[in-house]
C-alpha cells in the first residue's frame, strides 16, 4: 500500500525513512522531540550552530530512542552512560554541540552518578531529561522519580520511597542552567532548550512528560488525554522560580520555569580549551 506523506517543516532534522516511530499513541516524548528540534532549528537558522556539529546522545529507554530518528550524528549508547559518552565527545572535539536526551531512569537512576559529576564540573553539554516518572521501556517499574504512594509494577502496594528532585540536585552542584518544563507547555520546552544550547557549562532541562501506557495505566489513568489534563492541572508556570519552589510531589503539583541561569566558567574554559 502506498502511503503519501506531507512534508513537515522539521522533516530535515528527522530520518523520515525510519518512521513510523515506536512510541505509543498519546506519549509525551514526541512533544519533547519536536520542541527540541524547533529550538535546534532556530539556533541553526540564526547561524549560532552548524548542523554538522550537532551530536545527539541517548542511553537506553523510550526517550533515548529519539536518537534513532534524528538526522544528525546520533548515538544510541548504553543504559545510563549517555552523559560520560557525551563528555568524551565534547572533550575530544570542543567545537561539537553535544546534547544528551534520556529518561529519568537513564539520567537520574542508573546514570545518576554521571549526572552529578557532569553538573559539578560544569561540563559543557546540554542534558534534556524526559521525566515520565516511570521505567517505561521495560514495562512500568518504579523509577527514582516515581512520586510517593503511586503504583508501579514493582510497587504493588504503592511506592514507599521519596522521589528524587533532580532540578534541586543539579542546581545544588553548580550547573549554569537548570529549568523544569512540561509537555503540557511545549512552547516553554522550546524556549528553555534554546537557551540551554546557547550557554557555556552544564545546562539541564527536565521535561515532565506523560506515559499513558506504563505510568498512567498503573495509577488508574490509562487514557492519554485524561493523563495529559491531570498533569496540566498539576503544573504551575513561573518565570524565575526560587529553588524552594522546585518541590517534587504529585499532590502539591510542580512549578515549571528557569530555576538557575548563571554564567560561571565551564569545564572547557577551566582547562584552557575555550578562550
Amino acid at each position: 500500500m502506498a502511503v503519501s506523506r506531507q512534508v513537515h517543516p522539521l522533516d530535515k532534522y528527522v530520518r523520515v525513512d525510519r518512521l513510523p516511530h515506536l512510541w505509543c499513541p498519546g506519549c509525551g516524548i514526541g512533544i519533547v522531540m519536536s520542541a527540541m528540534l524547533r529550538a535546534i532549528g532556530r539556533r541553526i537558522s540564526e547561524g549560532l550552530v552548524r548542523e554538522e556539529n550537532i551530536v545527539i546522545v541517548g542511553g537506553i529507554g523510550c526517550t533515548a530512542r529519539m536518537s534513532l530518528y534524528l538526522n544528525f550524528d546520533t548515538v544510541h549508547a548504553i543504559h545510563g552512560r549517555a552523559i560520560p559518552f557525551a563528555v568524551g565527545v565534547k572533550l575530544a572535539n570542543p567545537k561539537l554541540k553535544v546534547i544528551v536526551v534520556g529518561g529519568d531512569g537513564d539520567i537520574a537512576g542508573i546514570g545518576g552518578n554521571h549526572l552529578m559529576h557532569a553538573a559539578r564540573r560544569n561540563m559543557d553539554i546540554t542534558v534534556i531529561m524526559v521525566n515520565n516518572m516511570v521505567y517505561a521501556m521495560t514495562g512500568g517499574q518504579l523509577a527514582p522519580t516515581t512520586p510517593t504512594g503511586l503504583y508501579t509494577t514493582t510497587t504493588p502496594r504503592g511506592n514507599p520511597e521519596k522521589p528524587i528532585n533532580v532540578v534541586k540536585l543539579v542546581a545544588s552542584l553548580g550547573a549554569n542552567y537548570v529549568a523544569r518544563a512540561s509537555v503540557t507547555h511545549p512552547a516553554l520546552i522550546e524556549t528553555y532548550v534554546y537557551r540551554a544550547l546557547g550557554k557555556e557549562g552544564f545546562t539541564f532541562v527536565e521535561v515532565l512528560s506523560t506515559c499513558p501506557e506504563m505510568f498512567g495505566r498503573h495509577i488508574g489513568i490509562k487514557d492519554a488525554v485524561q493523563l495529559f489534563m491531570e498533569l496540566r492541572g498539576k503544573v504551575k508556570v513561573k518565570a524565575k522560580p526560587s529553588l524552594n519552589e522546585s518541590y517534587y510531589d504529585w499532590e502539591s503539583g510542580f512549578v515549571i520555569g528557569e530555576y538557575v541561569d548563571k554564567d560561571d566558567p565551564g569545564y572547557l574554559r577551566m582547562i584552557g580549551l575555550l578562550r
Partner: protein
Amino acid sequence: MRVEYVTSNIAIAEGAMASGLRFFAGYPITPTSDILEYLAEELPKRGGVVIQLEDEIASINAVIGASWAGAKAMTATSGPGYSLMVEALSFAIITETPLVVVYVMRAGPSTGVPTRSCQYDVFQVRYGSHGNYELPVLVPWSAQEAFDLTVKAFNVSEMLRVPTVILSDAMLAHTWEKVIIRNPSELEIVNRRKPEVPPQEYMPFKPGEDLVPPMACFGDGYKVMVESLTHDERGYYSPTTEVQERMIRRLVEKVRRNSHLIVDYETYFTSSAEYMFFAYGSTARSVYALVRELRREGIRAGLYRPKTLWPFDEGGLKKVASKAKRVFVVENNVGLMYKEVARVLRDKEVISVGIIDLDVPSPDRIKEVISEWL
C-alpha cells in the same frame, strides 16, 4: 628516539603518546594509577586531554565517545575496574570503536592484594563482556615490549576498528628498565580508514574487503548512527536473525581473518627442544631463566612466548611445538591458558604448571614442580 629508564606503566603511556593518543580518561586504581598521573602531566603538553572521571564506567564510555569524535583514546585500569568496564566494552565491540584499554593485573578475587601480581584474568579479559565476539589482547613481558605493544595495540584497534587490550601485571607495572622510546616518525602508525564516498552514499557499518567499515567521525558531516542495538549497514536497528548473523559473523571474522596482523610470538631454543615451555608476561621471564639453566645442565629445553594471548595463535603454537616431547604451561594462576594449549596440542603431553605467587614464580619454584617430569 631517546633511551630512558622507566617502568612498564610509563612505557605504555609513552607508547600511547607516540601513537597519537589525544584523549585519556581514567579512575585511580593500584597498580595502574601512575599511567593516569603521568599522562595528566605529559599529554596536555602535546595538545591532548586527560580527565579523571567518577568511575571506570564513565572512563570507558568517555573514551568511546572521544574515539567517535575522532581522537585516539585510551583508558587504564586493573581487575576491579575492568569488571566495571565490560558492559561498555561490549558496546565498543558492536559499534566497532577503536580504543585501547590497559589492564594491569593484580591479585584477586575482589580487592585481593592490590599491590601484587598474578595472571588470573587472562580469560576475563577476553570473555568478560556479554555477546559473541573477538577481542585482541597483547601481553608484554618487559617495559620495552610494553612500549612496542602499545603502539601495536593502537594500530590494531585503528586498522580493525576493534577495542584492543594491553594485558600487563603488577610486577611489570613497577619494574624499572631501559626502554628505547621512539618518535612517531620512527614508527609505523596506522590511522582508521575514512570514508571515500559522499555522505549520501555512506553507510557507517558497510565493510570494505577487509571486513572493516571506513569510519566517519562526528562533525565530518556524515550523520552517523552509533547504535548499541543490532544494526544493519546503515546503523539501523534490525531484530532479524539474518542481520544478527551477518553482524556477529563479521565482527568475529574481521578479527580472525586479519589475525596475522595481530598475533606474534618469540621462541628461545625451541628448534631443538624436547621440553617446550609455554609462558607469557612476567612469568615468562622466570621461565626464560630456567630454560637457560636447564640448557646448561644439558637438558634440551625451549621457550615459546606469545606476545599476544587473544586471538589464540593456534598455528604458531602447533608449528613451534611440533618436535617437543612434553609441553609445560607455566602461569601465575591455577592453570588457565593451559586449557587452550592442551586443546591445540591435543596429541601431545601438556602439563599445567600453575603457581600462585604474589610476585613472579621463581625459576627455582618452577624447577621444583617440573623436575619429576624431566
